[in-house]
């Protein structure tokens, strides 16, 4: 690789310029390092999660089992029982965070994450309808969540985002739609039988317990398709951050790009929620945390995704191993962590003398 690090610049501005054949790229060194460290951290915590449990497995045996070289018992525990859960946590975290990064960037608002614009609430309504009315479990619930999420996003888009409407309107509209769906959800729960309501409630908190490779595929395949698309669209997203006018003046097809970006982010939010339930605050917090580390302008989709994975696997480890009650749904931990973070964020913004948005 013919890389040149321009080292006369301040550390934050250091770039790696790669020029070879038809490829000519310039990458921020800090972003690369942060991305790599976060990815390594996520994988390390994931391996720890695979090792710990009611039957602790030594790390070395975990790695052997993953390589298909372990004994049958260890392989059953690590690969069949624990791996789907860990993979779902990794993938859901990445999908939610990437979706959040895109929406926050599109709305140019730190609160513009799928949690706040009604998408996850819509997914919940879809899932609840399947659990409580159609008496479905498993895959049908996931389908219900996807349908609910997509339907809500279409509704919010039609109500608020047409004619290149203000991003802020989208958030207000999303909050309105959220409230409406939230009350629908409560109504559904209120009328449900106790056992159904319990199943629904666990789903509503967001959990990665008892997941199978079907769930892994449910979130993994869309992620594998959408993430590359988002990386292609990311440059347009950075241009949209400069305002629709400047973006258009620089040759960005504004409406088409925004629709493609929103659609991609909806797919990620929908499938992630379908696989793990509406896990709170990962989509909101991960992009902010990643951006704080990279100190880069722009959406930073990949670092955000890596941070989302870290939050999810760490949250799941805390939920399983640290809290006194066994096997707490991961959503409780991420909500607690995310809530604390959001409070801090708001306090900080206010100290700086301006409200969010």
């Amino acid at each position: 690789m013919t890389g040149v690090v321009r080292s006369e610049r301040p550390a934050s501005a250091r770039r790696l310029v790669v020029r070879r054949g038809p490829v000519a790229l310039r990458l921020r060194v800090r972003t690369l390092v942060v991305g790599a460290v976060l990815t390594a951290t996520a994988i390390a915590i994931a391996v720890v999660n695979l090792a710990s449990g009611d039957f602790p497995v030594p790390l070395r045996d975990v790695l052997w089992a993953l390589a298909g070289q372990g004994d049958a018992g260890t392989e059953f525990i690590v690969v069949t029982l624990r791996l789907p859960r860990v993979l779902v946590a990794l993938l859901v975290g990445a999908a939610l965070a990437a979706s959040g990064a895109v929406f926050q960037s599109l709305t140019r608002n730190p609160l513009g994450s799928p949690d706040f614009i009604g998408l996850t609430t819509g997914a919940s309504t879809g899932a609840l309808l399947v659990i409580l009315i159609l008496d479905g479990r498993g895959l049908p619930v996931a389908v219900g969540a996807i349908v609910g999420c997509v339907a809500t996003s279409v509704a919010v888009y039609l109500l608020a985002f047409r004619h290149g409407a203000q991003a802020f309107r989208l958030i207000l509209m999303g909050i309105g739609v959220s409230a409406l769906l939230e009350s629908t959800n409560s109504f559904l729960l209120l009328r449900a039988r106790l056992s159904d309501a319990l199943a629904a409630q666990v789903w509503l908190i967001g959990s990665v317990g008892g997941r199978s490779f079907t769930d892994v595929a449910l979130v993994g395949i869309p992620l594998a398709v959408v993430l590359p698309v988002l990386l292609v669209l990311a440059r347009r997203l950075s241009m949209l951050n400069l305002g629709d006018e400047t973006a258009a003046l620089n040759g960005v097809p504004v409406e088409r790009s925004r629709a493609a970006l929103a659609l991609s982010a909806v797919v990620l939010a929908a499938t992630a929620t379908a696989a793990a339930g509406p896990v709170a605050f990962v989509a909101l917090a991960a992009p902010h945390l990643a951006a704080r580390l990279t100190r880069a302008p722009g959406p930073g989709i990949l670092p955000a995704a890596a941070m989302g994975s870290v939050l999810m696997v760490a949250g799941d480890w805390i939920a399983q191993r640290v809290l006194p009650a066994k096997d707490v749904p991961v959503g409780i931990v991420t909500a607690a962590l995310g809530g604390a973070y959001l409070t801090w964020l708001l306090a900080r913004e206010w100290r700086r003398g301006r409200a969010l948005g």
Partner: protein
Amino acid sequence: MDERLRAEGLTLAYDERVVARDLSVRIADGSFTVIVGPNACGKSTLLKTLARVLKPRAGTVHLDGEPISSYASRHVARQIGMLPQSPVVPNGIVVEDLVSRGRFAHQRLLRQWSTVDESAVVEAMRVTEVLDLADRFVEELSGGQRQRVWLAMVLAQQTGILLLDEPTTFLDLAHQLEVLDLCADLHEQGRTVVAVLHDLNHACRYATELVVMRDGSVVAQGPPAEVITPVLVEQVFGIACRVMDDPETGTPMVVPASRSRRRETVQARAQPSLSAGS
């Protein structure tokens, strides 16, 4: 020969409010065209329509003989660059990153920082004298510095046609002249420059071609010396004035009548005798 950029029969409107009807204008190639006119006469709207940011309700903007809407947005962005009136300043972006984004229309997914891109950005920052600001955050710059940074971003786009919407607003006199001098340099290097300006004397000094607008239509177009007369200024701005030769440049210089004399003209409006001399 047709001009590269011309507009024919434009109707410009925001939702219900029609700004201009049957507006036609030709931008002479290689000119420094300055559009003047009272507030809300449709200058900025015209400029945005020429840059294809706004779609005209009726009529067509032609670029190189074809309707501008027939091109890919990327192609247009390689021909026409525009400095908007008040661009959004994103947080946490340093000057060099912002200027680099002006290369968007020239880049490809895997070809984002070719030697051509790099030299275009460096050159744009050099002529706007923002190289020293490369690692500063845009939001912490002064108005004058920020305006030069935006200009650098537009220049990095390397377009033959440059549209500037009130590039001197919010700048003190020194910075105004700095920006205008830079525009004049760019014009001398062969670019077509179109700017909306408020100061008539600046307009007369720098423009090779003046487009005078009022209520959404072009009232006069031509070299400043031929266009600017007391009658025209009174007709367009409703201000009695004298027009003299600028002692520095010999271009027309508009000197508004004193407050008392302007009051007289308002009272004498019934009789169409213009008391302004030249």
